[in-house]
């Protein structure tokens, strides 16, 4: 406490004034700081934490993102594109839970998961629209292209079409489509011939195996998954 430079009344106290408050009138002749929202827009900072992007080729399905997620918004999803199962599960992000902390992006060992500056997360309240914000992020190049084209920082997908057999069609804003089928959830690949998925014990085993932590453990498991599939 001896170090502290303490200042008392003589410096801290002020004198009350009847005249000074009127000086605020000068602000009447200044420009407003507010922006007219529909006509003007606010540009987010270059690395603003917005919606995710995912390079499906780079993703190794290690589930680090799912483990670090504070809100448990990430679910690993097995995807079939054109009848061909992707080698690894990909994260599916639920923006109803996501806190946009982007720890998932930080921990991604291959840099597959990224983020864009798009941040506008609004719906009209229709049921289809509510389903919009639970998606497997798409290629960063495509998202960047859409952002450059529209420049209003909205969600890159306009509508998600869901078919009863598990096929999802993402109708992007520029009219193109991303079509794939979600075959199953979890870390283990879905097996069609054996009807005993037993998802819960499988996950437990996985967790035990991963406890020694670090990459090697994750890598060891992935080849196994491949073998089984083949």
């Amino acid at each position: 406490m001896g170090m502290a430079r303490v200042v008392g009344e003589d410096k801290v106290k002020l004198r009350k004034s009847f005249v000074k408050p009127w000086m605020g009138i000068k602000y009447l002749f200044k420009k407003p700081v507010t922006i007219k929202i529909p006509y003007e827009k606010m540009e987010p900072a270059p690395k603003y934490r917005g919606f995710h992007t995912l390079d499906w080729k780079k993703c190794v399905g290690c589930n680090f993102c799912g483990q670090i997620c504070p809100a448990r918004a990430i679910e690993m999803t097995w995807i079939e594109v054109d009848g061909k199962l992707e080698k690894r599960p990909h994260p599916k992000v639920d923006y109803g839970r996501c806190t946009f902390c982007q720890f998932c992006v930080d921990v991604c060992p291959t840099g597959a998961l990224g983020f864009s500056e798009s941040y506008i997360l609004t719906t009209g309240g229709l049921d289809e629209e509510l389903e919009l914000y639970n998606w497997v992020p798409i290629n960063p190049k495509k998202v960047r292209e859409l952002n450059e084209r529209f420049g209003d920082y909205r969600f890159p997908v306009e509508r998600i079409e869901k078919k009863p057999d598990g096929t999802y069609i993402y109708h992007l804003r520029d009219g193109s489509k991303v079509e794939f089928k979600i075959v199953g959830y979890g870390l283990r690949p879905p097996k069609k011939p054996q009807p005993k998925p037993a998802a819960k014990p499988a996950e437990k085993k996985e967790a035990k195996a991963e406890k020694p932590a670090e990459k090697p453990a994750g890598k060891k498991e992935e080849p196994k998954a491949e073998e089984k599939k083949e």
Partner: protein
Amino acid sequence: MTNPEVPKELREEAKGHDMYLHPIAKDTYELFFGPQHMATENFSIILKMDGNRVEKAIVNPGFLHRGFEKLAEQRPYFTNIALLLRICVPESDVPENIYSMAVDEIVGWEVPERAVWIRTTVLEMARLSAWMFWIMGFGNEIGLYTAGQWAAAYRERFMRLFEELTGGRVYHIYTVPGGVRRDIPGDRWLRQLRDTVEYIKSKMKDFDEILFDNYITFERTEGVGVMDRRFALKHAVTGPNLRATGVPYDVRKDDPYYLYPELDFEVPVLKEGDSLARVLVRRYEMEQDLYILEQLLDMGPPSGPYMVQDARLKALPRFKPPKGDAYAHVESTKGDFGAYVVSNGTHKPYRVHVRGPSQSHGVTVLEELLKGARLADVPVILKTLDNCPPDIDR
């Protein structure tokens, strides 16, 4: 207040049925103050009124209860940052920093110099933006809405700076154990920060004119909600509220952390302990924070890494610190903010305890100070105590 027109029998009958009778018919009545009232933010007070005077005040918090401390036991170490910062919304960097400091101590990490500089700067920026937020609330409570509007506009400048630095506007999720998550975006950002500091400094005069020198401020706050030194120490009051009662306690001076030992600043102290003293202490600290930021900018960020180099960080979800416990605290605009973290060697903390200033300011002290206050003074006392409802509910 007794209404002489109401017959005595009716008054006798009304006792015990306060809520359901017309207020004229009884001496005292209950008033629900908040949570929709702007001054209370997110908690409410049940006031037992006698006419215009508060007879008894019962704080009614809990609207924001999320069980932070219990939730923190169920999440990996780094993930907790995204959770704990919600304890104090206007200055979310404070909970980030206390938790990170405690974990740093448990692991034994020497945080790189550059990260320390960034953390100090971020804390001071958070303090300034929290002051602006406070001016907004306080100005509104005493009817000087203009000052509040200005403060909200100036706070936006800090939000933009935070957005560039951290990627978030309100919840920065920036300080993590071992350093910070991103480097400074470049010299341009430092220049912008200096410009902002200069700008706010030039606007301090305007704030003085319209708010702090204003006779309305003096009339509304002088002699309202007085607490003496003994009372403040007994109720564990900290921060500007304690300094307004004559105790020069500032964590940045008395238990220095980060770069504060090297920085030069003054600790304002007043003896009155009333609302006016609290306001003036805050105003002076705002000036000091601007001065501290200037010094930090003159110092410049040291070169080097902004994150500790450690192999364990490669598997972040399974990061395990050694067994141990640590307590760290910083000076926030509300008071002494601290976190106690216990590690049992697993990838989740065994216990995280947060010591927030608002528990005492917003519950025990507030209830005492409101006794005998006029109804119009209730928001003034509330705002000059400057509590943070999510911290009470935790």
